[in-house]
């Protein structure tokens, strides 16, 4: 299928936007000015100012001398580009692929879209009148290539459409500037008297390359469709996406649930055909007022079970604010992975990891992921570093769990204690923790635990397991050695 492109040119993008925001400026001549080389230069002029001959690039002082009542506002650099991106997002209701085309245009890939509006001219008319209704003055054109559409929008008649394969004919009477050439090339063409494209389009390629460089040939080829041109859409296409447009704006939770159910069924059917499942998905609603609301879910393992995914989304539906109503729903799979096929388990009824994963997803969806931990051993010396969180339910430990005696309740931060020790390297006779004196009846140790030599920064720890007269068991350690400064003692855990 041949590609079709629509180019939009906003003749006074930033000034139109200002007039929309501040209606009192409508119909008045005003300019946006910025500093260049120490002089105030007009960056953009409103329709009225433009009609009076104030073009961008003029010095503000000159303009003010001619029109003393000219209004001048400061220009914000980068504002125009941000505005274009927002407009490109707005255009997503006309085509899924739209891109900003700085400094003042949009480029839409409309292949396969116009028939929904009843033809290309009706499509363009609808788009242009919607934008003009907002208050922008735009020129639009449709052609087979990006280059031709760009040229027609700026140098052709308003609303011109080049038929399929008709771009060469349409380009012939245009000036060379319509090819998006560099100013140096344009000057060279001007010097040689090439005022229209038809004057040089048939010249041999070698001649053109010798005189004007590769740039001219590339641009000419792009406009005629001989060369490919890259296109960077404002929203990248998501490979796993379903959309559901609504006849009437949806405002109720029940309506949102029905839309979500439909989208999930469609997407999950496709995913299960391909043997894939969702790890992360976003459910978006495009509202009547142009804003987008969305909820995101993540799963612990890839899933294409619509009932399970629906339950995860259902916990968050109250967060969607429909305001005046949602026009378009979309469901995107941001992260899609291969599904591990469930194995038949013959001997135990319980322990199905998929069901456990679904439970954890539900808890994670409500409380936020990062609350569930499954631990695996890690080959590190210090007890607090000897475990690491695992990534999935199926991950197996890569080393054995250590056999050494460890307390069941390990304090997250060791708590300082004061001790009475009869001899160095002996366990304490009693210790005081939080103002409570504990007498030691029995003890084991010491067990010296150092940091790994490539990390070592401090003194080693000597651990003692001690039991008080009641039977309570504690894990104490001494940080440092007697004879080398004053060692400190800490309580690090409780044995059961």
């Amino acid at each position, binding site marked *: 299928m041949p590609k079709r492109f629509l180019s939009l040119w906003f003749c006074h993008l930033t000034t139109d936007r200002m007039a929309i925001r501040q209606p009192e400026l409508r119909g008045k001549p005003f300019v946006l000015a910025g500093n260049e080389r120490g002089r105030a230069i007009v960056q953009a002029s409103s329709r009225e100012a433009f009609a009076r001959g104030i073009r961008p690039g003029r010095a503000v002082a000159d303009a003010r001398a001619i029109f003393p009542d000219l209004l001048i506002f400061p220009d914000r650099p980068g504002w125009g580009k941000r505005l274009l991106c927002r407009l490109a997002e707005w255009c997503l209701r006309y085509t899924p692929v739209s891109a900003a085309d700085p400094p003042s245009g949009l480029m839409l890939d409309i292949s396969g879209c116009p028939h929904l509006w009843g033809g290309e001219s009706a499509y363009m008319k609808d788009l242009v009148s919607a934008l003009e209704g907002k208050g922008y003055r735009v020129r639009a054109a449709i052609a087979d290539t990006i280059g031709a559409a760009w040229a027609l929008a700026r140098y052709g008649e308003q609303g011109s459409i080049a038929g399929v394969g008709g771009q060469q004919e349409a380009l012939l009477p245009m000036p060379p500037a319509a090819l998006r050439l560099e100013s140096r090339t344009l000057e060279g063409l001007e010097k040689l008297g090439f005022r229209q494209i038809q004057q040089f389009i048939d010249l041999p390629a070698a001649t053109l390359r010798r005189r004007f460089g590769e740039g001219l040939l590339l641009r000419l080829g792009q406009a005629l469709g001989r060369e490919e041109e890259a296109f960077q859409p404002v929203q990248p296409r998501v490979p796993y996406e379903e959309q559901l447009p609504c006849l009437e704006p949806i405002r109720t939770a029940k309506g949102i649930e029905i839309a979500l159910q439909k989208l999930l069924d469609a997407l999950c059917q496709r995913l299960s055909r391909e043997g894939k499942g969702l790890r992360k998905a976003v459910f978006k609603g495009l509202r009547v007022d142009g804003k987008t609301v969305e909820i995101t879910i993540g799963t612990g393992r890839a899933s294409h079970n619509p009932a399970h995914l629906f339950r995860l989304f259902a916990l968050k539906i109250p967060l969607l604010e429909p305001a005046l109503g949602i026009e378009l729903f979309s469901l995107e799979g941001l992260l899609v992975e291969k599904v591990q096929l469930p194995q038949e388990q013959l001997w135990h009824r319980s322990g199905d990891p998929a069901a456990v994963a679904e439970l954890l997803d539900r808890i994670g969806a409500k409380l936020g992921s990062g609350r569930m931990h499954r631990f695996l051993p890690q080959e590190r010396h210090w007890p607090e570093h000897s475990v690491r969180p695992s990534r999935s339910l199926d991950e197996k430990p890569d080393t054995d769990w*250590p056999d050494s005696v460890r307390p*069941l309740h390990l304090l997250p931060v060791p708590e300082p204690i004061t001790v009475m020790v009869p001899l160095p390297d002996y366990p304490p006779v009693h210790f005081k923790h939080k103002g409570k004196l504990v007498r030691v009846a029995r003890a084991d140790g010491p067990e010296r635990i150092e940091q790994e030599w490539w990390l070592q920064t401090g003194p080693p720890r000597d651990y003692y397991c001690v039991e008080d007269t009641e039977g309570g068991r504690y894990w104490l350690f001494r940080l440092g050695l007697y004879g080398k400064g004053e060692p400190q003692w800490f309580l690090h855990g409780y044995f059961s």
Partner: protein
Amino acid sequence: MKGNSDKMDRLRQLKQEIMALEGYLPQKGQQPDSRLQLGPLHAAFSGGAFPLAANHEFISHTPSEAASTQGFLAVLLGMLLQKGGFCLWLGVRPQVFPPALKRFGVAPERVVFVNVPREKDLLWSLEQALSCEALVAVVGEIRELGFSESQRLQLAVERSRVTGFVHRHQPRSLHALACATRWKVAPGPTPMSTCMPGLGFPVWRVGLIKVRNGRPGDWQLQWDGQGFQEVFREEKRQAITQNRRNYA
């Protein structure tokens, strides 16, 4: 007279059925579970079987008692997880150091820890977990639990037949809950009879304060990695050895 004894038989049968439904006895046609080997504790339960599809409440006051309770729980989990499966350990903050579970026969990677900062969310997650049939057991470290909340947990357990353990550390009030048992586990001193220096096997003073359809009791138990053994107090031990000598 014959009609009367028939009635009594029928009543007993109905009682058994109700208890099976409530999770205190294995259901009809099912073999009694042989995973739990609790030694001297079995005598306390009706029918000699630890109620599996039920909630059990554990009370602790000091950090040492909390650690002992967790140790006792870990032993029960280790027996329940013998045939594979997963177990959930929910709490407000991380409590258990996973490598220590190995000593009690639990593969630490089979336990999933969930930390829920708010008690209200913790109750919700506990109910969700208890109604998930794929789990073997669920431990909830929750401080306050109301009666109606415990009833909800009991309903979830009756449907899914998961074993639930509720560990309440320093609870404000000890009112009745819809739980099958209430336990208090405290650490016990290493028995003096072992002439070895240092610390011995974990010793717990296990108190079964409440048990439905059973007999409460007190035991001093030692876990040696294989099973529970009763540790006798010194005077009792001496009396027993004295008796032996007299008979010899």
